[in-house]
């Protein structure tokens, strides 16, 4: 556990030193703030003290930002060979992966915490549904965790950050919209299965304030699969080096 934290701390320092963290947070707050308060179906247009428009836009912003955070994590280590330096220390593959994963989650959590002023202001305008808000934040954190695990996986299969970024977006796109679109044209049992694979369906039910174990299992299994495949892909070095 201590080792995971040491690796996560180094990763966080490198986020902040390279300004990636600052840029990501500023852009995230800028985008979500703009669409929550000023443009589109903003709070004033809807006329309700609700964070639904914020959750909707944050859902999309995180979809693009998370691959940008995770793309360099293992791809850069593979390219520069530092992965060899790291793994010949008393550190397991799993500790490296979890350390990097933890750093990403912490950075996203920081970004989400910084949107709390939105919550405070809106709750000043009218009656805000506390349960719904907490569930909405939980949903954002869970989709971030799911996309981060996909991002770390694509970062582990390549030495090129752009390839890692684009493949994470590509895989993410299926969960984000494609499954839902396919399912809408299908009927019956098979359609239901595809529909239940869609991240959007689970995100919407959760951010509506319905805490269902099905959704939690869904996010949990994506996170597990992503991290598991990362570990498999990292151990493939035995066949190539």
């Amino acid at each position, binding site marked *: 556990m201590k080792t995971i934290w040491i690796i996560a701390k*180094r990763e966080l320092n490198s986020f902040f030193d390279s300004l990636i963290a600052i840029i990501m947070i500023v852009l995230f707050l800028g985008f979500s703030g703009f669409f929550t308060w000023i443009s589109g179906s903003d709070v004033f247009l809807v006329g309700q003290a609700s964070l639904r428009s914020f959750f909707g836009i944050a859902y999309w912003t995180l979809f693009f930002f998370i691959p940008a955070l995770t793309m360099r994590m293992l791809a850069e280590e593979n390219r520069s*060979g*530092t992965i*060899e*330096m790291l*793994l010949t*220390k008393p550190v397991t593959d799993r500790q490296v992966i979890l350390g990097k994963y933890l750093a990403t989650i912490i950075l996203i959590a920081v970004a989400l915490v910084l949107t709390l002023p939105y919550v405070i202001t809106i709750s000043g305008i009218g009656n805000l549904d506390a349960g719904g808000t907490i569930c909405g934040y939980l949903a954002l954190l869970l989709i971030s965790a799911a996309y981060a695990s996909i991002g770390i996986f694509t970062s582990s299969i390549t030495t090129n950050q752009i390839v890692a970024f684009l493949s994470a977006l590509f895989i993410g796109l299926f969960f984000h919209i494609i499954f839902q679109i396919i399912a809408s044209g299908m009927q019956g049992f098979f359609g239901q299965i595809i529909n239940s694979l869609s991240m959007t369906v689970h995100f919407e039910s959760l951010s509506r304030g319905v805490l269902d174990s099905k959704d939690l299992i869904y996010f949990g299994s994506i996170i597990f699969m992503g991290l598991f495949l990362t570990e498999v892909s990292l151990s493939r070095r035995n066949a190539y080096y």
Partner: protein
Amino acid sequence: MDIVIENLTKKYGNQKAVDNISLRVATGEILGFLGPNGAGKTTTMKIITNFIAADEGNVYIGGKSLRDDPQEIKKHIGYLPENNPLYQEMPVIDYLEFCSKLYNIDSSRVGSRVVEMIRTTGLNSEKHKKIAELSKGYRQRVGLAQAMIHDPEILILDEPTSGLDPNQIAEIRKLIRELGREKTVILSTHILPEVEATCDRIFIINKGKLVADGTADSLRKQAQGSDILRVRIEDGDPNQIFKSLQAVKAVSMVDFADRQLNRFDVHCKSEEVKREIFKLCVAKNWVLTEMTPFETKLEDIFRELTMN
């Protein structure tokens, strides 16, 4: 701690990178690992340091199998990988602190270990710079510092002096020599004089297979078969001298090295031959102006063993 390698084999596809290598390195021994590019040196080192797993065979470090508890064994190994990969964006001090924490060094000792390593490797003036800003020589020192930060019993160094200038090479060699008194060191290199200068034992591999194992002197003996003396005798007819030399008892063979200068290569059977030649010159009233033991260069041995 000693290192025992048993029948190590590693395949990449159909190609055997390491082919049934067995090796024993005693505590306090400095082993020079030689071989042409692609011979399997780096692969062997990656297996010893547990970065990749062997297909067959096993490595025992201090009597413990690498397969049983790799995390525990890794604590006793310091490793400088080939090309010395480092986190470029980190300052030297932060990087060394990061490494010492990964080795689970007590947090009260981290500071003093880092300072000590910076002093040992001469990084004091560069310690606050980012690694990306350092010259290659200084980066190499950072690589060595991180390998030694936890005071390991075993050091595995993959081309420790590559990219250094002659002064730095001399310093690093001296450092390795000093370390080698208590630690077990395996180092790989292309620079042959370096092996002679630093290593107790030489291990040459070619195409994954062991081709030679021994001290520099024993390898030389093995390659030559006998000692060779280079002799120059003046004030005499070359052909006559040639014949007289051949007649000496302890001489097995004589070659002309340079007819104009009356230089000969004398292959000798015993140490007696030097006295015999001297006596011969006195008797014939010739002048002996040169007599040097001729050594086969390590380069030649290396080429002979690893070509074809």
